[in-house]
């Protein structure tokens, strides 16, 4: 088989319809590509990155349950891998505890916020069913977790370099904010397609969701560092927990103390 000539006639690159979208987008499902069913997590991952409208359309079709399951599986898989990278900072038990906590935290946050999303959706005039909203939230989780997976190599480099739990915790939080931004953007786009009259209700819900996910970092601590118990024995608001981590973290951890024995207040 011969390779293409090194100086071929310039050929325009393949630009997707998304990149060269017309000013007024077609109605949901009008484009043939959007009607292609999503049957597995790999297809869901591909679609949520490149054809988010395909996901939104498929969520309104019979068999939406399979799409939601695919999105959730993708989210769980990606979050597990990212969690392992988070766990490499401390090693030992955290290699399995961190991924479990991150997956549980994500799913719990979504479950806790689901009823309020439905209520806010109704208040915004949307005719979305609970199943539609479940699909959008599954998409949010899948996209956010997928981006976390993309950040995983970067996070790993920092995990191996730094000794500061507060430092690596800040980096993970930064990645989570970026991932959440794109996930929530997907949710917002889906919300608009579900006949919502305004997005004020969604904006309020976004604040609630963000606060819940941030509180998970305190409720499920330690996720980054280590502690004598799997879950915390003391209840704390996340800001107070972060403050303790930042103030309590030494500039350089003494070499004689192995990572696994860092006191729980240093964990974030």
């Amino acid at each position: 088989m011969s390779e293409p000539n090194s100086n071929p006639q310039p050929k325009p690159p393949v630009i997707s319809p998304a990149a060269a979208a017309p000013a007024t987008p077609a109605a949901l499902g009008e484009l043939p590509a959007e009607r292609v069913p999503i049957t597995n997590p790999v297809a869901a991952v591909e679609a949520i990155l490149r054809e988010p409208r395909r996901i939104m359309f498929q969520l309104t079709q019979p068999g939406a349950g399979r799409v939601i399951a695919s999105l959730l599986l993708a989210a769980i898989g990606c979050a597990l891998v990212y969690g392992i990278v988070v766990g490499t900072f401390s090693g030992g038990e955290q290699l399995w505890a961190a991924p479990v906590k991150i997956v549980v935290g994500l799913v719990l946050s979504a479950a806790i916020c689901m009823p309020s999303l439905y209520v806010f959706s109704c208040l915004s005039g949307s005719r979305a069913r609970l199943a539609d909203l479940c699909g959008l939230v599954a998409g949010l989780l899948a996209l956010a977790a997928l981006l976390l997976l993309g950040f995983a190599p970067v996070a790993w480099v920092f995990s191996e370099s730094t000794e500061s739990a507060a430092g690596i915790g800040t980096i993970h939080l930064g990645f989570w904010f970026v991932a959440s931004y794109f996930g929530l953007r997907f949710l917002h786009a889906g919300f608009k397609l579900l006949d919502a009259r305004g997005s004020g209700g969604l904006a309020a819900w976004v604040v609630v969701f963000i606060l819940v996910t941030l509180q998970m970092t305190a409720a499920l601590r330690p996720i980054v560092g280590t502690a004598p118990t799997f879950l915390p024995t003391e209840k704390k608001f996340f800001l107070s927990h972060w403050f303790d981590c930042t103030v309590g973290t030494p500039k350089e951890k003494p070499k004689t103390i192995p990572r696994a024995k860092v006191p729980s207040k240093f964990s974030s």
Partner: protein
Amino acid sequence: MDAHSSTLDTQQIPALLRGESESISGWLDQSTTRRAALCIAMILVGAGLYGAAVGLWRSPLQAGYNAIKFPLIVLLTTLANALINGMFAPLLGLNLRFRQSLMAVLMSFTIAAAILGSFSPVVLFMVWNTPPLGPSLADARDAHSFLLVSQVALVAFAGIAGNLRLWQLLRQLGGSNAVAFKVMLAWLAINLFLGSQISWILRPFVGSPHLPVEFIRDDALAGSFYETLFSAVGKLLSE
């Protein structure tokens, strides 16, 4: 396989430097292993020569180490960020395939490496004119600082030029200034973020006068670039 394709066509590098978007965009559409190899070869040669020239002030051994480490920074940054860069492009409105986004980033680094490589004779001349590492630690520190600052300026220039070309290419692909700018900014931010840390791990490059020549320091993985930066800023503010 034709005879032409079996060799690296180095004549494509000037087209890349000139920013001939029409011909370069074809690279993304038909990005072959050979084209990727051409980019990697240019990075190895360009960044390697530049690194060697910088390290020569300290010692020939440091020059040898730098010739390996400079290209390594570029390639490790590109590889480690490939996944997230590939995700950012479609999410920000430019529907590039993973392979295409990887190639686009590689091409921008190739341009930067070509510029750095072209500067290597200039750097050699600078090194030749810089007071050598002698018994006076104060003189050595001045020379070390001069080299550090000048290298930062040269690397920044090469980086800006590479990203300018990248922006032009993305603008042609996306047909929109805003989309191209967003994608370039996202790629630039994550590449800078990780690139700084990888450079920190692979230090020294110029080499502090009072420290021995090493491939990497014993404490390479102790602390991060950002912790050191914050610590330095904190010290400045507290003084």
